[in-house]
């Protein structure tokens, strides 16, 4: 276990030693304040409190989407850059299995996602306090946590897609492009029966809030099972390819 933690530390350092790594966090902070300012100035009392503002904005339909894009950009290169830099050779001739190395990278992607989400929550709450104040409304900490969970699922699935694409294509650009394209079209609903088995309509679990559903005949547990299935599939494909691939 200690060995694995050290691998994760290695991956985290590779990301955080970049001077540009603070930029996405700064973007989240600035964006939260701007959104708060705009909604406060031009909207007419849209939110009753900081908690309501935070939980609404955090969803995949709000800041959650921007956050997902930032996570994709931040982590798309975690595998592919090793190939393009040529560092993959030194990485794979260590007394560590390829599975462990790749798993440490995936864990790092999830940690990065989590760190971004926590910064987003803090930034949004700060913005909410500034523009809407602490008291009032019905929303509380549990509402925020529910929203956080929805965003976390949405973001983690996309991060997994990006992770797999990075392994398969070995190109950072293609990975970022394809995944961001997916985030853009995932709101489109094709009103056909088969579409509910596609990944996209199942991604935003917040659609089930207040008894709704993205499409007829879909339930929360249906979506959860489907998301787990897809995620497992993506990871399986990624690990299978990475373990077997010749490094030329």
């Amino acid at each position: 276990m200690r060995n694995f933690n050290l691998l994760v530390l290695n991956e985290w350092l590779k990301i955080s030693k970049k001077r540009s790594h603070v930029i996405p966090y700064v973007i989240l902070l600035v964006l939260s304040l701007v959104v708060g300012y705009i909604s406060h100035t031009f909207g007419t009392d849209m939110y009753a409190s900081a908690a309501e503002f935070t939980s609404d904005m955090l969803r995949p339909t709000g800041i959650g989407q921007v956050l997902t894009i930032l996570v994709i950009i931040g982590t798309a290169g975690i595998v592919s850059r090793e190939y393009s830099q040529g560092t993959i050779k030194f990485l794979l001739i260590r007394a560590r299995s390829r599975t462990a190395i790749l798993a440490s990278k995936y864990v790092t992607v999830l940690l990065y996602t989590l760190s971004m989400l926590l910064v987003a929550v803090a930034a949004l709450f700060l913005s909410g306090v500034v523009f809407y104040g602490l008291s009032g409304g019905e929303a509380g900490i549990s509402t925020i946590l529910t929203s956080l969970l929805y965003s976390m699922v949405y973001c983690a699935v996309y991060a997994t897609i990006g992770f797999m694409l990075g392994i398969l294509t070995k190109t950072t650009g293609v990975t970022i492009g394809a995944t961001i394209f997916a985030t853009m079209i995932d709101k489109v609903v094709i009103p056909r029966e088969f579409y509910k088995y596609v990944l996209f309509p199942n991604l935003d679990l917040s659609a089930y809030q207040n008894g709704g559903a993205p499409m007829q005949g879909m339930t929360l547990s249906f979506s959860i099972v489907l998301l787990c299935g897809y995620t497992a599939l993506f990871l399986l494909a990624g690990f299978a390819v990475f373990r077997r691939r010749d490094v030329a």
Partner: protein
Amino acid sequence: MNSFTRSNQGLPGPGTEPAVLEMQGVSKVIKGKAIVDNLSFEIRRGEIIGLLGPNGAGKTTTIRMMTGLIRLSSGDVLVHGQSIQKNFKQAISQIGAIIENPEFYPHMTGYDNLRQYLRMSDGAGASRIDEVVELVGLQEAMTKKVRAYSLGMRQRLGIAQALLHSPKLLILDEPTNGLDPAGIREMRDYMRKIAEVEGIAILISSHMLAEIEQICHRAVVIQNGKLVTVTQLAEAPEARSEVSLAIRVDRLEAAQTVAEAVQGVKVTGMDEARSELHVHLPDGTVPELVAALSEAKVGVYRITENRQSLEEDFLKWTGGNRIA
């Protein structure tokens, strides 16, 4: 000239201990074409081996298979008796390698880069970094980002990285690439040192035949993925019975007559322009010839040995193909 003896005396021969590296009928077939074809050879403790071959001979593919970067189509690679396929971790922990160019994380310092690899190896403490850095002489550059490194500095950092976990076998792909003459010499001395003192076996693939000739005990020559020959480069002087000499004299004709009169001496040619006589004779006859020449009052200015260089041999083996 060269004080370093290439003879392998004192080292246990094969059979007394397992070879550091054993290639057993290794093949790599890609799309029906054999890139490496049934290659077998072995490397023993403290040996420096050159891997030679023309372009596309399969040198890099061979090295990649040794280090587990690519799969073997058939055969096996044993490192200290451990299969790189079945016991990858045990096998690879005995290998330190630079494959093609040494590439590091450019946004991190040399020190941070080495620490990355230290975290991935077992049983090496932080002090080991200082040791290897001192060995390759990079102390001043360690706090600089690798982006600012010259190729020579990256090459040294590559060696440091390869030695970090104290391997038994060092695999170097073109180790003197990008080094200046002083650096090449230093690298050569250094490689001899680690081979002799620490008993680390070294496999070097290189363009430079002269380089291989100067440092290696044996050379493995491959072409089209097949083993052409394994040649002993470290012949002991006494083992050679015949020598070819070029003798620069003042009176060429007289010298020729004298030389032909000495038993065992064969005059192979004359170079009028340089006033040189080319002879082929048994090693033991050389003093006799020199004595005969001075007796006949033929002035001798130079005696040089015409050794067939590795390059000539190489071209002969590989049928004049261009050198990789």
